[in-house]
């Protein structure tokens, strides 16, 4: 219990830090020194001190969306385990809760983007919905495969079982497939390359960034923070499935899990460095492949 609480606090504190690790990795590959490790925090503080400017066409939806997003992602964090560390709130079937709380978060972003009435934002929203509809299938089926494999329907139970050996344990093949699928889902849901480029400067090619163009100040800070926590949540799931480690003590588990998250951030940084963004028409294909991987895992278990 104490470790679960500790995990949540660590998540709240260090979620933006993971973003920074990704950026530093990319800078390393690019031969630059890159932004300071605490840059995301500086940005957040800067944004929090600014006031917001609202378009005259927006309604209350636009105003409330950022808060709801943060609330949703915090709820998701509460049911997220990390390997051997159970979630703060663990109950049977919480995997559905997690998926749909994340869905709520996305819904808020999308509907707020539509609320602005801007053509760019509508376009981004359309893409986001299209891709996440595919990614959600992959995520759900993948989690279902793990659930069927370990005979448990609670995320914490599932992760504890999977933690036993990850990709290299006796459940190897299933975990390998689910991990691969979750990695794609993670990249898609967090708008990373090869699905979306967080650093792009052209509105036409953006997906996530274009939807939050009209936000500023505190609202933007909330959204950025929520996005970072979301990465942490999905990352924790992936690490739980993939990491071949089982410590004897809880503190060891926690340390290994955090180490796994750091490695994950490094891996994402490497992927972003060596890959180009996919053409938009190819993105659904990637997500369908992720779905197929999950499906294969499920099949491997059920046959």
């Amino acid at each position, binding site marked *: 219990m104490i470790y679960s609480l500790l995990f949540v606090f660590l998540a709240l504190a260090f979620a933006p830090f993971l973003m920074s690790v990704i950026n530093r990795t990319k800078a390393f590959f690019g031969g630059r020194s890159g932004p300071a490790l605490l840059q995301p925090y500086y940005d957040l503080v800067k944004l929090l001190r600014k006031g917001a400017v609202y378009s005259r066409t927006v309604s209350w939806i636009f105003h409330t969306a950022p808060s709801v997003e943060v609330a949703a992602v915090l709820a998701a964090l509460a049911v997220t385990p990390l390997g051997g560390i159970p979630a703060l709130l663990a109950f049977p079937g919480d995997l559905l809760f997690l998926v749909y709380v994340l869905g709520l978060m996305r819904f808020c972003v999308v509907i707020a983007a539509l609320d602005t009435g801007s053509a760019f934002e509508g376009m981004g929203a359309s893409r986001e919905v299209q891709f996440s509809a595919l990614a959600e299938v992959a995520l759900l089926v993948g989690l279902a495969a793990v659930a069927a494999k370990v005979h448990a329907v609670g995320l914490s139970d599932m992760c504890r079982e999977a933690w036993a050996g990850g990709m*290299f344990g*006796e*459940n*190897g*093949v299933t975990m*390998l*497939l689910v991990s691969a699928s979750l990695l794609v889902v993670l990249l898609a849901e967090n708008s990373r390359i090869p699905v979306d480029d967080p650093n792009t400067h052209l509105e036409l090619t953006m997906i996530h960034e274009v939807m939050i163009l009209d936000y500023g100040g505190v609202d933007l800070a909330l959204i950025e923070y929520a996005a970072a926590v979301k990465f942490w949540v999905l990352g924790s799931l992936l690490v739980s499935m993939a990491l071949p480690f089982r410590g004897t003590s809880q503190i060891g588990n926690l340390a290994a899990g955090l180490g796994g998250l750091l490695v994950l951030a490094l891996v994402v940084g490497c992927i972003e460095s060596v890959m180009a963004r996919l053409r938009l028409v190819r993105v*659904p*294909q990637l997500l*369908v*492949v992720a779905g*197929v*991987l999950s*499906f*294969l895992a499920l*099949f*491997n278990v059920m*046959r």
Partner: protein
Amino acid sequence: MQSPYDLMVILLVLLNFRLLGASQLGACVNTVAVQALLIGLLALLTPGVSWNWMTLMVVFVTLIKAVVLPALVRRAMRETGVVQEIEPFVGYTFSILIGTGMLVLSFLAVRPLQVPLDGAAQVLVPVTLFTMLTGLFLIVARRKAITQVLGFLTMENSIYLFGVAFAIQESWLVQTGVLLDVFAAVFVMGIMIHHINREFDNIDTDRLSNLRD
């Protein structure tokens, strides 16, 4: 790891999806080659295989299918100057979805069959079927003559897989059969592709549509 065997089987399935989703001809050729290699490895890893001249035969066939044939196909591609883009009749994403359907179908289809041999080969039957369906699908749903040859080679791979999976007693049949088929696929069809290219200036088989009722 469950076993390297299982992993390889999953890899085979994934390679099929790669074939269905690949948009470049070169990638397809490589995938077919890797598939052949993997199947050869599977054959050698099958429990109960003793080292004798049959092993040599497997190595020989695998080398032909994984090295010689792709080289020949690539040569044909170079000589005919074919465009790398595959130009499917059925889109890539949809192909992959159909692939999933075929996978399920093959698992369902072999349900009533009880495999009389040992359990390791159990999972290979549906995978064989799936690979075969993939090959057929490639033949039907792609436009270029070379892709049709590749689809045929994929089918061939599946047949070989089945043969080695069961370590069929009359393995001369497996080897000869596959070699004959491969001969048909590459030499005769290769010659034909050459002629088609000369005659039509490209190798899209949808140009071959003069004969119809």
